[in-house]
């Protein structure tokens, strides 16, 4: 279907709405990568097959990630005139039983997580109510999305379509208001007006740095040179962050539309998306989205008959963290090793192939259509003074509700962890939150009232980063975490700058000493001065921010370092050289589970009698600790 006029767009929207909310029942299966990992593909196949075999008058469809990752696989039932019902943990084993009920037109109560009474739609003229009148029975008592602690503080703007549409269906995207902002842009706005709206909205880059998006666009528009390139950074290298991938897998057209609007504002007709090759589903989803947009005439020449041309190519990254850095990314697209270069010449002036280039992050692009569609004032109302809008975080680690959450800027760390995340599991204690990935830092409980926005986090020694938020509890050792990030950065440094290449190695050696109970307090000072040297002497931000994880742990958890150095103790019982495994004879009932797991034959004893552990043989692998159901294996 060609979409070249407003009539075409309206027609596509009508068809799309009929597909989104048909006059018959519909079953949705969450099929982003983490859903698939939990078995969603098999669930989908089963439901799909049953529907076909039984000639069911309904629709079985796939959708993206709504954020409830800890309850995967997710299945939703949408019956005409009924609220949308979300079922959690629908494993392939129980999907058959759920099918029997749904196929018979019943809404079973088991496994229900929540109901949704209306679809907010964000872009498409207000909410759509699913039913009239009052709910009866258990449905009335089923919590609504907005009643759940996990959702109460959330507001989905960038994720507006994730979990609602089939990402491969262009018409679904249009049905929820997509590509209307592009139409408005191309037919009623000058490029300068677009830039002004984005600037006034206060949008800042979501890829880490928080640079004002409109300002970047304006400089690229002003830059001399042709052609100009519009790029999307989908490299997502922060280990523990997967929001960009989910956006791509759940709503690829939001990114394409954002880039189209940006390209018009900047004056570009060629775009690239640099996406990690390790994200096969995201790559495929983007390929399909680009094809369908091209077929519809939404990418290519003379879009909406306005004379505006723009097309997008995909480029697969080769798995190097440093390629997320703007100049390295551009080198990589050119087919070179991804080494950053000095940025005294800005990439907006001379970037890809020495032409003016504008790079933004996936989530940044996904926000753009909403800003145009709803207006800058609407957008400015969300968030804090200096940080407007929402931010998606992947809330992971030692937290009960692991998932993707999109909250207005300014929510406190405490609310995010305790309310949205449901706190740390198994009655352990919250210790710190790691934010900003390898360039960020660990923020302790004393500061958990901190509002999450670009500037507050900066003041606390961390950065917003791309949105990975890793919750740590008292089983995490801060010296070990510092070591972990240094390992990562040493591995990922491109090696061009000596302070980054060697300084980090030296810091790593000192940390190694600490975790072996060696070293002295004076070494702590050496760490600090090395950190300064690495910060100052590195070309790119990888080196420039590399010491942050070390510095924040030193700043907030100095006593833990001191325990390693002065008392040869690892309080979290992580550092191998400082811990011993023992068996408590009073708790051991001789079940022999650990004996089978021990690679060293270090555990001996008679069946049903307390066992003993030979510490001289033990390699501290922790396997016995893991399998003992009686808590008889102790580590300290």
């Amino acid at each position, binding site marked *: 279907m060609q979409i070249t006029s407003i009539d075409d767009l309206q027609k596509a929207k009508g068809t799309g709405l009929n597909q989104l909310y048909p006059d018959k029942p519909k079953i949705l299966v969450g099929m982003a*990568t*983490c859903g*698939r*990992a*939990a078995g969603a593909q098999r669930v989908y196949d089963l439901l799909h097959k049953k529907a076909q075999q039984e000639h069911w008058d309904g629709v079985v469809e796939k959708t993206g990630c709504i954020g409830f*990752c*800890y309850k*995967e696989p997710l299945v939703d039932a949408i019956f005409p005139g009924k609220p949308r019902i979300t079922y959690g943990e629908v494993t392939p084993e129980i999907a058959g039983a759920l099918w029997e009920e749904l196929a018979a037109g019943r809404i079973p109560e088991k496994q229900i997580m929540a109901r949704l009474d209306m679809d907010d739609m964000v872009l498409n003229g207000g909410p759509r109510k699913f039913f009239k009148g009052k709910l009866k029975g258990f449905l009335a008592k089923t919590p609504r999305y907005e009643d759940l602690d996990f959702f109460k503080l959330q507001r989905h703007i960038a994720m507006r379509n994730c979990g609602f549409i089939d990402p491969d269906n262009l018409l679904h995207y249009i049905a929820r208001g997509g590509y209307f902002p592009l139409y408005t842009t191309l037919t009623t706005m000058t490029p300068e007006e677009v830039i002004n709206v984005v600037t006034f909205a206060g949008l800042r880059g979501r890829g880490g740095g928080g640079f004002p998006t409109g300002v970047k666009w304006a400089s690229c528009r002003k830059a001399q040179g042709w052609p100009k390139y519009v790029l999307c950074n989908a490299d997502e*290298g*922060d*280990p*523990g*962050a*997967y929001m960009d*991938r*989910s956006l791509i897998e759940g709503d690829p057209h939001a990114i394409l539309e954002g880039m189209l609007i940006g390209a018009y504002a900047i004056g570009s007709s060629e775009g690239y998306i640099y996406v990690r*090759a*390790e*994200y096969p589903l995201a790559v495929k989803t983007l390929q399909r989205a680009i094809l369908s947009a091209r077929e519809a005439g939404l990418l290519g020449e003379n879009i909406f008959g306005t004379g505006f041309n723009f097309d997008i190519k995909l*480029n*697969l990254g*080769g*798995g*190097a*963290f440093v390629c997320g850095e703007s100049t390295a990314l551009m080198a*990589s*697209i*050119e*087919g*070179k*090793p*991804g080494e950053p270069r000095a940025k005294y010449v800005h990439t907006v002036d001379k970037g890809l192939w020495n032409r003016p280039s504008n790079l933004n992050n996936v989530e940044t692009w996904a926000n753009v259509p909403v800003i145009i569609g709803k207006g800058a004032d609407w957008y400015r109302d969300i968030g804090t003074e200096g940080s407007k809008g929402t931010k998606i975080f*992947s809330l*992971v*680690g*030692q937290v009960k509700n*692991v*998932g993707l959450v999109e909250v207005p800027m300014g929510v406190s760390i405490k609310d995010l962890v305790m309310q949205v995340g449901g706190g740390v599991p198994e009655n352990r204690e919250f210790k710190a939150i*790691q934010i900003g*990935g390898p360039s960020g830092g660990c923020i302790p409980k004393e500061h958990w009232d901190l509002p999450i926005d670009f500037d507050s986090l900066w003041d606390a020694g961390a950065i917003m980063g791309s949105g*990975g938020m*890793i*919750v*740590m509890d008292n*089983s*995490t050792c801060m010296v070990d*975490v510092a070591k*972990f990030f240094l390992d*990562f950065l040493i591995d990922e440094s*491109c090696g061009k700058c000596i302070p980054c290449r060697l300084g980090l190695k030296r810091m790593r050696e000192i940390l190694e000493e600490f975790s072996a109970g060696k070293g002295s307090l004076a070494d702590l000072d050496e760490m600090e001065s090395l950190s300064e040297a690495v910060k100052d002497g590195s070309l790119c931000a990888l080196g420039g921010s590399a010491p942050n994880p070390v510095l924040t742990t030193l700043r907030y958890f100095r006593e833990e370092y001191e325990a390693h150095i002065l008392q040869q103790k690892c309080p979290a019982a992580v550092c191998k050289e400082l811990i011993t495994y023992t068996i408590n004879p009073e708790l051991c009932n001789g079940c022999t589970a650990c004996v089978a*797991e021990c*690679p060293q034959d270090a555990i001996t004893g008679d069946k049903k009698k307390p066992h003993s552990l030979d510490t001289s043989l033990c390699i501290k*692998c*922790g*396997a016995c600790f*893991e*399998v003992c159901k009686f808590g008889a294996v102790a580590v300290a």
Partner: protein
Amino acid sequence: MSVTFKALENILEHYPPSSEHLISALQDVQAKFKYLPPEAMTAVCDHLGVPLSRGWAVATFYKTFSLEPQGEHDVAVCLGTACHVRGAHNVYEKFRRELEITGQEGTTRDLKFSLRQVRCLGCCSMAPVAQVDEEIHGNLSQRKAGHLLRTYRTR
């Protein structure tokens, strides 16, 4: 799989002779042979008109490329931050012991498994996580890791 002229031809015909396609072409070679055989590297560089040294510079820079033949099953264990704080390190060591890999990463002598580390498979909600070939396995423990290898050994 042996490196045939035909297989390389099939890959190279997609690319016009220009250096910007170096990484993509090598990615295709890697996907086809699971590593970069030297004769394939020569063919790619010749076709695209880039010096061989540039080809190897790219191949050693990016993690997706391996220079050695890979095992039948690819075991990628996540050591991302979320997995790390949930004990991925011990799980990784279990894989190393079971597969008798002496270095940090490597391939078993029988060419059955290759073990490697990755950072974030994007399934942090199921940390610790490993991916064997295309399939992701979550909530791993050392014991589960052992089971997992046994199921692939008998496949």
